[in-house]
């Protein structure tokens, strides 16, 4: 009997431990801490946070999740949210977070001067601190210079069976499609997505890195990828990955026109932040020269002010024209983009 009872008691305590996963973060708002809700979980982020704590003594506590979930959670938590800072890798998501009233403006000269005016919120609700461009990578031995220049070219019939891109469920592709919608209009953007889907060498699978490697191996001649993936492959510890990246050539698209589509790693202070001063210090730290150098070299993202001298690899790629015209529209056009991608049959 005693045996059964102890089993029952034991099991109930296990159950209650499981059902009520201790949150722990909400209550402990010790003096020197900043709570960050972040979509990013790259290795360089940990280095950044350690560096920040070392310099300021402020502890960084991070909660990782997809941007949409983070926004949803901020909404649900309202005033009781423990978050001080929201970080995503998509300006569209930041625009949405501002629209939903989840952020508060921060007025800081360090920040306004630390990031380009076109890539920050006009009223200081969020600031970009690193930039990634969505570019074309072509097989250097099979694609001649000038054979492909623009995103629009990817839909041309001569590229049938020669293009690789990851799934349309990726936010990178949705943001690119949003910029196509705002540059070309719905009808032409749809036709473009149809053409692109028809030109794919294989049904979308894997991430940006996989597209680059598959191109290098000869499966296709051109692929879409974010610049830092290419940079990371060039600097990979794996010699095979370095060799693959070495076979590719980078093309910044649409240089004769509106410029290359970029997105940003961006941070904003949450509406109900309890540690506003620490949050602000954290944002300012992210655009400091030291942090920028780490971001450029560790994560291979472009520094906020596009100072290419920070990273020799990026310096070699050279300066390029950024599409700032469609940038501000990104959040608004995203739902339309998702609908059109579906209609185009881009899986």
């Amino acid at each position: 009997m005693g045996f059964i009872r102890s089993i029952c008691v034991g099991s109930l305590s296990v159950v209650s431990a499981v059902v009520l996963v201790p949150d722990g973060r909400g209550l402990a708002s010790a003096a020197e801490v900043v709570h960050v809700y972040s979509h990013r979980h790259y290795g360089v982020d940990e280095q950044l946070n350690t560096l920040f704590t070392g310099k300021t003594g402020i502890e960084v506590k991070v909660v990782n999740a997809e941007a949409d979930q983070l926004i949803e959670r901020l909404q649900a938590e309202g005033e009781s949210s423990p978050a001080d800072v929201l970080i995503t890798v998509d300006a569209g998501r930041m625009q949405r977070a501002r629209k939903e009233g989840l952020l508060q403006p921060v007025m800081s000269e360090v920040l306004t001067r630390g990031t380009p005016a076109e890539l920050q919120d006009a009223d200081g609700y969020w600031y970009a601190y690193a930039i990634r461009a969505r570019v074309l990578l072509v097989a250097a031995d099979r694609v001649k210079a000038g054979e492909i220049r623009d995103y629009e070219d990817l839909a041309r019939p001569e590229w049938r069976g020669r293009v690789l891109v990851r799934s349309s469920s990726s936010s990178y592709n949705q943001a690119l499609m949003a910029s196509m919608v705002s540059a070309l209009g719905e009808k032409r953007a749809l036709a473009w997505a149809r053409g692109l889907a028809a030109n794919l060498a294989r049904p979308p699978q894997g991430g940006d890195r996989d597209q680059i490697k598959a191109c290098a191996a000869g499966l296709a001649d051109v692929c879409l990828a974010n610049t830092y993936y290419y940079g990371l492959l060039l600097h990979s510890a794996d010699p095979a990955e370095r060799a693959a990246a070495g076979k590719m050539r980078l093309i910044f698209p649409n240089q004769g026109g509106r410029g290359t589509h970029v997105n940003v790693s961006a941070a904003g202070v949450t509406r109900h932040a309890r540690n506003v001063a620490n949050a602000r210090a954290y944002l300012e730290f992210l655009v400091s020269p030291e942090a920028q150098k780490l971001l450029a070299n560790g994560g291979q993202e472009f520094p906020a002010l596009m100072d290419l001298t920070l990273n020799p690899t990026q310096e070699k790629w050279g300066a390029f024209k950024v599409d700032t015209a469609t940038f501000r529209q990104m959040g608004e056009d995203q739902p339309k983009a998702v609908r059109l991608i579906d209609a185009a049959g881009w899986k």
Partner: protein
Amino acid sequence: MPPDGSDPVRRQRSRWRPALLAVWLPALVVLLPVLVVVWRGLQPAGEAWPQIVEARLGGHLWQSLVLAGSVTLLAMVFGVPAAWQVTMHEFPGRRLLEWALVLPLAMPGFVAAMAYVDGLESLIPLYVRVRTAFGLEAFLRVQQIAPWVFAIGVLAATLFPYVYLSCRAVFEREAAGTMEAARTLGAGPARVFLRVAVPMARPAIAAGGSLVAMEALNDYGVVTAFGLSPLTPGIFRVWTEGHPEAAMRLALMLTALMVLLVGLENWQRGRRRFAADPGDIPPARHRLGAAGAARAWMICAPPLVLGFLIPAWRMARWAWQARDRTDWRGLLDAAGNSLLLAAGASVLISLGAVTLVAARRLATGPSLAAAQRLGLLGYALPGAMVAVGIGTVVSTLAARPGFGFLALSVSATGLVAAYFVRFLAVSLQPVGAGFDRLSAGLHEAARTLGASPTRALVRIDLPLVWPAVLAGATLAFIDVFKELPMTLVLRPFDFQTLATETYRLTGESRIPEAAGPGLLMVAISLVGLIPLSHLIRRRLQ
């Protein structure tokens, strides 16, 4: 005899009527997501729905059907002949193969998929040759087919043990006499297999095959790894895009497929119950010569190699290579979360199963049998449906003032409830069987000696069925431990399990780092699986 002289049976029933509600509780929890999904699925789904119907539905449906069909077929090709070889023949290594063929059950499909995903890449030179030799159209066709070949292969190679176990059980019990007869009449081994073994095992093949088909329809990790989009990932995608009603309609379609499958299995089985006397004739294994033994190995080894050895070997190598890059603390955290969740859920599931089954000792009535049948339903419910149903219930509750602690992002309540719904049946079956084997006379004797029904249950019945309860709990533990899609969508924030961690790292193409958590999952599942393989076999019968 009661002093007022009333009928004791009637008194017992009236006394236990209020408790009926408590007994029904586990069944109601299982029913809840179904009701929610049906109710919400019938509501207007907004403008998203026609768009989904036009752009995606057809693709989701045919992909689901092709996938379930081909995986089941291939699992039968892997499982039936292997079962035949190890039960009917004696050859060097037979005993080893007999239990090793169960090992793939410890290898979750999405973990095995990780070991094959890079196969798509290493085959590129071959694809390029196809393009130069046969032209662009042939190349594109090969590209369409390749992910299917991989996904179907991985799923079949990890799921075939369901067919293998059910067939082995039948062959062991029934085949000896029949086969001797067929041999005496001059039939060769191939003829005996096709004309005697396969027809004899048809109900068992149908039972194992329907489990395989269900798992294939429920799969999320393998199909997404290879870029396919059948219904299950389709439901989750629509759900995360913020169209719950549309997701529920898709979930209802998937459930309809499952129901169709169960119906198909019942029809296949028909009245063909197992007819021979079980256990009377010990299987006399036919000793094979060198050629026969080689053939037996060639039949049994491939599924084992594909479904377990290759993935395990590759993962072990990757885990070793990535040992410096591995985030050990994160891995330990994830392992702790997995263990805690699986332990907590399996305790709850066992309590539910015991309540449902033991109730029949305490009271009678047709509603109790119905409750038990409802409890069994959960296993046929698609994980995607349970996830969206429970997700909706929990978010609705959490939106009420004072219930915020329930929110999916903060607590595991919803996740544990989903596990309960989906895996109650897993524990219910062994517990039910345990009680069925137990003579009701013992319980009656205790009652005659003056024990109350509850006391008799706790003092007499429970200690005797304890092993069955424990077995059921272990089965549920393993299933929860390996579960991926429901965990992905219902888990609290910033909360990783071994399954979600493996999936996340695989998704980020960080395969060597994903090998650590994957391997740990396989190892822990193995510990539970080996002593349980005979029990699973019983569950299949």
